[in-house]
């Protein structure tokens, strides 16, 4: 951890070994006319202070759902149907809504894909940030406004003294996302959930935002759950990768481990499918077919119909997460197993 931690006004991190977020056997279900759909199935992971956990997967794999479930922002009839979520040692999945509301913004900051929908067009950004500070931390209007300026400066917005008085439409896309990040940081949360924070941005701006998020996590010790479909973004920013498939967590390991030696056949396919920048391959590795819909998840391993290495065991029984040298993987082939 850099020494800026001590003099940083936003630093709330105590370097404890206790994880900021602990998710255990989390399941989310959507009861429907034709039975119950399991959108998340038995997800477990920890998030340490200052750590960025990148969550990847295809659309519908459950990565955004995980972020929403942790914040308890699921759209009814979706609900947490099993498992536990602990934030800073406190169990939050059963908290009354009123208490949960106080946690959101205070302990959990959120950054969503589209910066324009996260900001109120009718108020200046200074007003929005300082209100958030006053609601969660109290203090005078003037002090909150000073903090808002400081936050805008921290997220790299030029001339923050003028910019606090501007409205969201006066900012460009990249600058708006910086404002949203400042807003997420306003109440000095311990956890940030960033759902596709750079998907709406151009590549050169994306690089700026990702390096900003990385720097903020390093400096303030805030932990981040980074949800994205872009393996490149995760390679650049995250400490660990969690790979999701059909509502399940199938691989969890440090970034460099996963990129160097992906253990799950799906992760291998996902990495092989990205066109290389260094050389032009005649053909990309492709995973045939597409992810099953939630109402037709096959028996056994959910990936077995698309898996080049699937055997009878994969079609009959579902593999649980088991340990690898550096992380965890849910595959029968792990550790010399037989499919």
């Amino acid at each position, binding site marked *: 951890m850099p020494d800026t931690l001590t003099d940083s006004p936003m630093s709330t991190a105590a370097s404890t070994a206790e994880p900021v977020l602990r998710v255990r056997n989390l399941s989310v279900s959507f009861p429907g006319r034709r039975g119950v759909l399991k959108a998340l199935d038995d997800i477990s992971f920890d998030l340490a202070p200052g750590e960025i956990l990148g969550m990847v997967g295809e*659309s519908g794999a459950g990565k955004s759902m995980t972020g929403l479930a942790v914040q308890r922002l699921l759209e009814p009839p979706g609900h947490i149907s099993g498992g536990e979520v602990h934030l800073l040692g406190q169990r939050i999945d059963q908290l009354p809504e009123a208490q949960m509301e106080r946690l959101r913004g205070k302990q959990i900051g959120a950054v969503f894909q589209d910066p324009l929908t996260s900001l109120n067009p009718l108020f200046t950004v200074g007003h929005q940030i300082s209100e958030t500070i006053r609601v969660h931390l109290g203090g005078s209007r003037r002090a909150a406004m000073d903090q808002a300026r400081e936050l805008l400066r921290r997220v790299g917005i030029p001339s923050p003294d003028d910019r606090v008085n501007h409205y969201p439409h006066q900012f460009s896309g990249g600058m708006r996302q910086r404002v949203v990040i400042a807003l997420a940081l306003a109440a000095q949360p311990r956890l940030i959930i960033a759902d596709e924070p750079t998907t709406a941005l151009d*590549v050169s*701006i994306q690089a700026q935002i990702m390096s900003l998020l990385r720097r903020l996590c390093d400096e303030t010790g805030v932990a981040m759950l980074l949800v994205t479909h872009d393996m*490149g973004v995760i390679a650049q920013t995250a400490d660990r990768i969690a790979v999701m498939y059909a509502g399940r967590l199938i691989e969890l390991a440090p970034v460099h481990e996963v990129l160097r030696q992906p253990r799950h056949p799906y992760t291998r396919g996902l*990495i092989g499918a990205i066109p290389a920048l260094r050389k*032009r391959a005649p053909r990309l590795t492709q995973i045939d077919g597409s992810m099953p819909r939630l109402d037709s998840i096959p028996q056994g391993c959910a990936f077995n119909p698309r898996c080049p290495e699937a055997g009878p065991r994969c079609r009959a029984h579902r593999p649980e997460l088991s340990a690898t040298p550096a992380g965890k993987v849910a595959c029968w082939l792990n550790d010399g197993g037989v499919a």
Partner: protein
Amino acid sequence: MKPALVVRDLSRVFDVSAPLLNRLIERKPRMLLRAVDGISFEVPQGGCLSLVGESGCGKSTVARLVTGLYRPTDGQIEFSLGDSGDRIHAHMIFQDPYASLNPRWRVRDIIAEPIRELGLRDGESATRARVDELLGIVGLSQRDAEKFPHEFSGGQRQRISIARALAGEPKFLVCDEPTSALDVSVQAQILNLMRSLQDEFGLTYLFISHDLSVVRHMSDRIAVMYLGRIVEEADTESLFDNPLHPYTRLLLQTIPDIEAPRPDVPPATGEVPSPLKPPPGCTFHPRCPEADDRCKREVPEVRDVGHGRRVACHRVAEMLKRNGMSALSA
């Protein structure tokens, strides 16, 4: 062999002024947006030229100009004659496979429309047979013909779009971000399909994308666009090995590279200016680390720097020298 497509000094200006009454009462000036500003390029037969750039650089406008969906304000677009003596015509694959297929039509009718419209087959049974054949070519089954678009995933819909584009028996396909709405694993399927179709039918592609790794995989040549102009054009390998224009270098630096993550490299600053008020001189100068006074005054012309590379930069001579002239001796 003559290039399949020659584009000369192509421009497209959009009038985005306020309505006349507002202009008179509020004294607002006319506002003209030069989406495409005098660009020239050629696409060789059987090749693939890609246009890359960030949002608002005009690459999709070029796609729409080339396919005739917009009229050019100025300049020429000329397709050459194909082997059969007919003029080559272009078909288009759109970005969003959810918006580009009519939800009320069955897949059979969607794919058959160009066949019927252009009178390419005699009679309904020949058309049916052709639709079945096309479905096979793009990797769908004949049973899929009776379904509606909503029954398909994004990747399958993009296959339907490709089948529809192939139905007109074009020699030239304009692909406007064909995979950017798709997941990576599905993107790989579509890119592989497009490459094999190119080999099989000798197709020529004009490929539009913001994703440099996709572009690298697909193209023989790349033209980098910035605010309506081409700033650099080169063959794929030399562009990636030896980018000359500072903007190309910025783009290459900022793509996340999973083979060699560089979290420590500070990203370039600045943003694309509004195309309504482009900066004077070279439009890239406010973000350019190399810019001098001349760049702020004079618009650089696109110049041939040898070996099939074109660059629009006043300081290209220094860039070449800095790169050890390797670009010229390659």
